[in-house]
C-alpha cells in the first residue's frame, strides 16, 4: 500500500460558488487506478464527490477526466503513472474540456459530443437489396472498421481537441471517427453522400489541424485523427470531392508539380492549386499573395530567375517511384489496428532480410 494525494476540482452548481480544489489522501497499491482512488475518497471521506463511472476496466467510457492536464479515463490511469507525471506530488483530476461542467467531474456530453455524433448520420444505410443471410464482405474491411467501432464514446478526444477550441462547431474527432465507421463499411450504400456532406460542412472534416491531441488522448487506440485523414483520402481519391478549403486541388497540384519538376516549384504551386495561372479562380488568389511574393523577393527568398527559369524535369528515379506507386492495384491504407504477424510465434522465424530479398527478386 502507498499513500497518494488526490487534488480534485470540485464544483457545486447549487452553491453559487466558483469551482474549488479539494484534497484527499488515499491508500492503495500503486498499480491501482485513479478512479479507484477517487472511489476510496468518496467511500471513506466524502460521498458527495461527483464522477460518472461503472465498469472500472476501460470499456464503458463513463469516467473521462483530465489527470494532471492529460485527458483520459480515470480507470485507465495508474496512480503511480499519474504521480510520475505530476510536478507537485499531487494527482490533479479535473473535468474534461470543451464541454460544460454539470457538477465536479461530470460534464454535459449531450449538448456537445452526442449532438456532433448525431450530425454524421450515425447509422448504417445498408446496401439494397438486403441479403437473406449476411452481407458478404471482405474480412479485412470488417477488422478495419472494428477499430473505429472500438470507440467507447468517452469524450477524451473531444476534451482536448484544439480545432474545437477554436471552432466549437467543429464536428470533432469522435464523431468523425464514427463517420469513418460507415464510410469504411462496405455494407453502407451512401459513402459518397456522407463524404460530400462532411466536405461541404464548413466545420466538417477539413477543420482538423492534424495536431495529434486526439490520438494521444484516446484510451482505445481508435486513432481519430487517422480516421479523419482516411476520410479525406477516400473523398479525394475515390470520389473526387473538391473541398471548400481547396485541399483536394492543392494536393493534386502538389503531386503533379513534383512529377513535373522533380523538386517542388513553389512559384507554380499556388496558381496550380487554383487551376493554373490563367484560371479565373486563381487571379484573386494571386493578387492577394502579391505582398508575400514581394516580401520574399526583397529578402532574396524568391528571385525572378528561380521563379521563371526553374528547371522542369524530374529524374528517372523519381519517375520510377511514381510508376511503382501508381501501378499498385489498390490504395494501401495504413491500418495500425492489427500489428504483428502469424510468424511471431514460430520457433525459428525467417529473417526479415531473407524474406525481403525473396520478395523483390
Amino acid at each position, binding site marked *: 500500500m502507498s499513500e497518494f494525494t488526490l487534488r480534485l476540482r470540485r464544483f457545486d452548481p447549487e452553491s453559487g460558488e466558483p469551482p474549488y480544489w479539494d484534497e484527499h489522501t488515499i491508500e492503495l497499491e500503486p498499480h491501482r487506478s485513479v478512479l479507484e482512488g477517487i472511489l476510496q475518497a468518496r467511500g471513506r471521506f466524502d460521498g458527495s464527490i461527483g464522477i460518472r463511472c461503472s465498469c472500472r476496466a476501460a470499456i464503458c467510457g*463513463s469516467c473521462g477526466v483530465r489527470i494532471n492536464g492529460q485527458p483520459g479515463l480515470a480507470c485507465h490511469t495508474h496512480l503511480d503513472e499519474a504521480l510520475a507525471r505530476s510536478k507537485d506530488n499531487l494527482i490533479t483530476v479535473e473535468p474534461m474540456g470543451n464541454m460544460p461542467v454539470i457538477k465536479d467531474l461530470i460534464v454535459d456530453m449531450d449538448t456537445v459530443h452526442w449532438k456532433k455524433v448525431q450530425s454524421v448520420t450515425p447509422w448504417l444505410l445498408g446496401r439494397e437489396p*438486403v441479403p437473406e443471410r449476411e452481407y458478404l464482405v471482405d474480412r479485412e474491411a470488417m477488422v478495419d472498421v*472494428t477499430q473505429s467501432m472500438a470507440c467507447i464514446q468517452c469524450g477524451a478526444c473531444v476534451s482536448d481537441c484544439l480545432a474545437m477550441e477554436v471552432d466549437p462547431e467543429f464536428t470533432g474527432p469522435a464523431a468523425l471517427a464514427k463517420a469513418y465507421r460507415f464510410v469504411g463499411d462496405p455494407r453502407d450504400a451512401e459513402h459518397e453522400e456522407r463524404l460530400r456532406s462532411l466536405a461541404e460542412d464548413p466545420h466538417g472534416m477539413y477543420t482538423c489541424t492534424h495536431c495529434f491531441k486526439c490520438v494521444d488522448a484516446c484510451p482505445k487506440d481508435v486513432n481519430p485523427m487517422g480516421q479523419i485523414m482516411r476520410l479525406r483520402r477516400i473523398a479525394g481519391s475515390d470520389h473526387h470531392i473538391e473541398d471548400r478549403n481547396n485541399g483536394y486541388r492543392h494536393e493534386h497540384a502538389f503531386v503533379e508539380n513534383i512529377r513535373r519538376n522533380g523538386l517542388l516549384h513553389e512559384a507554380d504551386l499556388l496558381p496550380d492549386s487554383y487551376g493554373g495561372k490563367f484560371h479565373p479562380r486563381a487571379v484573386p488568389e494571386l493578387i492577394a499573395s502579391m505582398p508575400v511574393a514581394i516580401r520574399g523577393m526583397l529578402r532574396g527568398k524568391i528571385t525572378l530567375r528561380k521563379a521563371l527559369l526553374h528547371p522542369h524535369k524530374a529524374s528517372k528515379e523519381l519517375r520510377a517511384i511514381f510508376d511503382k506507386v501508381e501501378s499498385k492495384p489498390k490504395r494501401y491504407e495504413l491500418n495500425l489496428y492489427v500489428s504483428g504477424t*502469424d510468424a511471431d510465434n514460430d520457433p525459428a522465424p525467417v529473417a526479415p532480410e531473407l524474406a525481403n530479398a525473396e520478395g523483390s527478386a
Partner: protein
Amino acid sequence: MPEHDVLIIGAGLAGQRAALAAAREGVSVAIMSKVHPVRSHSVAAAGGINAAMSVDDDWRSHAYDTVKGSDYLGDQDAIEIMCREAPGEVMHLEHIGVTFHRNERGELDLRPFGGASIARTAYVADITGQAMLHVLYEQLMKHSSTVERFEEWFTTSLLRNDDGHCTGVVARDIRSGAMEMFTAKSVIIATGGCGQAYLPTTNGLIVTGDGMALAYRAGAPLMDMEMVQYHPTCLVDQGFLITEGARGEGAHLLNSEGERFMAKAAPNKMELASRDVVSRAEQTEIDEGRGVGPGGKGIYLDITVVPRKRTLEALREIVNIGRDFAGVDITREPIIIRPGQHYFMGGVKTDVDGRTPIPGLYAAGEVACVSVHGGNRLGANSLLDTLIFGRRAGEHAAARANDTAMPKASDASLRDDAAMIEAIIARPRDGRRISEIKEELGETMNRYCAVFRDEAGLSQALEVVVRLKEEATKAAIDDRGTVFNQDVLGAIELGYMLDTAEAVVVAALERKESRGAQFRTDYPERNDAEWLKHIDINLDAETERPTVSYSPVTITQWQPEERKY
C-alpha cells in the same frame, strides 16, 4: 406527466432491443436508464453470440447444449424458442450494422465456446457486446422520433393500480433532481443483474439489482436466484473479466505443477467445459494447494499457445486488460486468473413473451428468468437471451398496449418516493457509511454464497444480510444537493442489492442438492427426484420477509441425464 404505450426501464441490449421492437409495432415508446445507454453493462460482454448458423449445425444441437449446460433446470420450451430464433436475430443485427468478424469467404466467422458441441459463436473481436450495444444505440438515434429517450433517470418504484396492474414508474431526473411519474400501458424492466452484491465481481458499479428489487417489492416472484455464475477467468486482483473467447481460441488452464488439470474434470471438452464445471475445477486446485501467484489464489491462463497475430486481432481487449491492469503481455506469458462472480441466471420470473405474473409488467435480459439458463448459462448465450427475449417482450408489450386504455394513476407514489428521498438526505450522520455496508455485503456473498456452499455458511450469510438491511436504513450520506446527487442514489441502490442478495441466500439455503452453479458441499449430488424444480422467492407483503414456493421445469424433448464434459 409523461405518458407512453410502452415504457422500458434499462437501456442495455435487452432494453434497447425491446424499445426498437415495440416502436416497430407503431406504439409510443420511451426508454429510460440511470446511465447513458452506451454505458450499460452489456457493453462489457466480450466473447460473442451463439446461433446455429453454419451448414453443419442445427438449432436442436444448440438447444441440447443449452439444456445440458443448464444442468436440466432450464425450461426447454423457452430454450427451443431462443435457439430456433437465434440465426434470424444475428442476421438482423448484421443487417443493421454490427461489424461481425468474417471468414475468408466473407461470411460470419464462428469461434468455439464453452459447453458448445460445435463452433457457433459469432463475434466482433472481443468487444461483441460493445459493438452490438453501440449499433443498437445507432438505431435509437435513427428512430429518435418514435422512441423517446430519458437518459440518466433513476427509477424509484413501479406503480400498480387497484387491480394490481403495473401502470408506470416513479423516477428521478439525476441531473435536475426532479421527481416525475411516468404512466404507461406496459412497462418492461431490462435493468440487468446484481453483480455489485458481490465483491469482487466482473460487473460494473451500476449493476445493483434495481429491476429485480423493484419487481420483487411490487409483488413479482424471483426465480432460480440461487444460480449465480462464477466466470472461470477473472483477474485475481480487480476481478476484471478475461473473455471465454481466450479458451475458445485455444488457451490452456494450468496449475502450479504446469498441469492442464481440466483433464480430470472434463476429459473431452477440457477448458471448454461449461463455466460451473471449470470454475469448480479451478477452485478445487486452489483449495488443494495447487494454485499460483501470491498466496496460491490463482490459476495460469496460458494464451501464448494462440498465434500472436490471431490474439492481437481477435482478443485485442484482453491484450489491453492484461497490459493495463495486470502488467502482463498475454501474447508472451501466462496471466493469473481465478473464478469470479459474473452473472445471475435467476431473476424476475417471466414466460416466453416476457410477461411477469403482474399484468402490464414485462422483464427481459439478465433481470429476467425465463428460464433459458437454468442452473448455468453457457458463454455467449446471454447476448442471445437479451436480444431474443428483449424483442419478444417489446412486441408483446406493444400488443398489450394496443388493447389497453391509458391508465389513470394517482400521484401518491410520487409523493411517497419524494418524501423517501428527502428522508435519506435528512438522515443524521451517525449511521455506518454506505461503502462499508456494501463492502461487507460483497465480501459475505463472495465467501459464503460462491462456487462451494454449505448450510452453515449460507445461514451465516443470511444473518449478515438481514443485519445489513437494518443498518442500511440508517446509513449516512454526505451529499445534500439535488443536482447529480449520486450519494442518495447509492443509498437506494444499496437497498436494491440487499433485497436481491437476501433472495439469493434464501434460495441457496432452500436447494438441498448440487446442480449447475449451486454446489452444496453438504449435498454434493444432483437430486432430480426432489429438486428438478424452480425455486420462486416472493416478498410477503405482511411480514416483509421472503417466502419460498416452487414451480415445475418444462421438459420437451431432453430427459435429464448424467452431465459429463
